[in-house]
């Protein structure tokens, strides 16, 4: 069953001769437990694709279905609720709150949403991500890799159906970048999450089940072996 579908989605900015087609007619589908990479150069429309898929903006036309619910027809308040319930974000810039320690980053989500991970599940997640000893640390006390792993833990803590990661390895060296991708793969398979990673780093696609390439607003499915 498709967890996320984009049907004939377009996104246009501006009008007349200033019109930019950031996303040309796009069709996309992601199943439960899939780890998908969307690659492409800067300005190709990757982030527009990700933010439309995550309900952060609405398409100019077409439909975005999250578990068969069309986000394009919802107002911001309702889309916000869908994001909270169904979607986890891992952003380029850390999505951590600077004045909360690692444990409290999770507790913040308990304040706004029920049905998050149990204590045991969270302990196991900390173990998997190797951040068990960082529970009382604040973001400023963490290295870039540690921050990214905490951000992954935070994104997974609310048990989202869909995990959207925007350049999750951008600030990391190669070793740490592979480590993060390994973790994303493990969590995707273990929790049956649908994970979409937007990246310009083609070295990461070996961890993914499917690879899409975005070029000038056009999204197309690639054979992994054909990606240079």
């Amino acid at each position, binding site marked *: 069953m498709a967890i996320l579908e984009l049907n004939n989605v377009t996104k246009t900015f501006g009008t007349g001769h200033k019109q930019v087609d950031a996303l040309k007619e796009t069709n996309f589908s992601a199943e439960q437990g899939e780890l998908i990479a969307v690659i492409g150069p800067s300005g190709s429309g990757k*982030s*527009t694709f*990700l*933010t439309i898929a*995550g309900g*952060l*903006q609405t398409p100019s036309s077409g439909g975005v279905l999250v578990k068969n619910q069309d986000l394009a027809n919802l107002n911001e*308040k309702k889309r*916000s*609720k*869908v*994001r*909270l*319930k169904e*979607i*986890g*974000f891992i*952003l*380029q*810039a850390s*999505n951590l*709150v*600077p*004045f*909360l320690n690692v444990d*409290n980053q999770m*507790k*913040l989500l308990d*304040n*706004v*949403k029920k049905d998050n991970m149990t204590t045991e599940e969270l302990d196991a997640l900390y173990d998997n991500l190797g951040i068990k000893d960082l529970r009382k640390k*604040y973001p400023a006390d963490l290295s870039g890799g540690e921050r990214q792993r905490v951000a992954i833990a935070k994104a997974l803590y609310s048990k989202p159906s869909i995990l959207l990661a*925007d350049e999750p390895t951008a600030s990391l060296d190669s070793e740490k970048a592979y480590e993060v991708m390994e973790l994303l793969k493990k969590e995707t398979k273990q929790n049956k999450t649908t994970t979409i990673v937007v990246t310009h780093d083609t070295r990461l696609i070996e961890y993914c089940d499917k690879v899409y390439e975005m070029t000038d607003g056009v999204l197309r499915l690639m054979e992994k072996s054909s990606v240079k």
Partner: protein
Amino acid sequence: MFLAWNEMKKNKLRFTLIVGVLMLVSYLVFFLSGLATGLASLNREAVDKWGATAIILTEESDKSLPQSSLTTEELDAISENKTAILGQLNSIATNGEAKQNISLFGIDPEEFIMPDVTEGEVFSEVNEVIASDTLKEDGFKLGDELELSSTDEKLTIVGFTDSARFNAAPVLYGEIDTFHKIKFGEAATENETQINGIVVRAGDLSSISTSNEDLEIIEIETFIENLPGYTEQALTLNFMIYFLFAISSVIVAIFLYVLTVQKISMFGVMKAQGISNGYLSRSVIAQTFLLAFTGVVVGFALTLISGAFLPSAVPVSFDIFTMIIYGVVLITVAILGAVFSVLTIVKIDPLKAIGG
């Protein structure tokens, strides 16, 4: 509250400074309110102790007690029977060492405006008086023989009563005959029915009436407001207090707005994660409440502590009920100041905040 509290715990110095500013503003508000109450007491303390509903003066006196002149015979023209006669004059009293402006109240000790004696005894003879105990701080004591500026008569302090001042002067209470002797001297007998006013205690002002058209029934609060300088003084201090309310609201608004602007990106990320405007706004309001409440409570305590060490010459009197009301107003205006921050949060576009 979770976000608010944790942010304050993590950034103690920043929030201590904000609490410090709010504390100083509330300290100033409480102190001015104490000064307003103290200065008001200087004028009205003795009148408040009557527990009276109205005072009857002559129409032509224009609500001024010393300018009013009537006789005890006018009592017959008054509908209420709970009345008290009052003769009043201002003078300067000296016991040979200390000198002080005083207000002499000539009364009938059997009537309700007779004060309670806290030290010494009730006057029983002409020229004996009970004095406001504030005179003790000026060097007057029991048994002192007082010379007055306007007469050769001498008064003896036989007792003290709790602080009682009228128009900024400590009050001496004596028999109405004492008042007559001092005011009229040898003509006292001819003027033995002369008084300045009649104080009336009734359930309701409308139940008081007089058949004498030359007399005016004045509600006690109106009478006090017409004391020389009283209203002008009260208005000045109250304006200062109201301006401080407005200033504190603006200060809080600026502080919180700057803090909110610094956190726009963080709020944007949280909104992208699906955390609602309502939750974030409540967090800012809760934080404002905690800051304002702490500032006001510390300011309140500081005011009472410094009040205890002030010299008695400073006319400060803290009315706890008024201070609580002002404290609540300060917290409320601080929360109103947070509205700008809430509007900023509502306007944050999560897409822009995360750089999409």
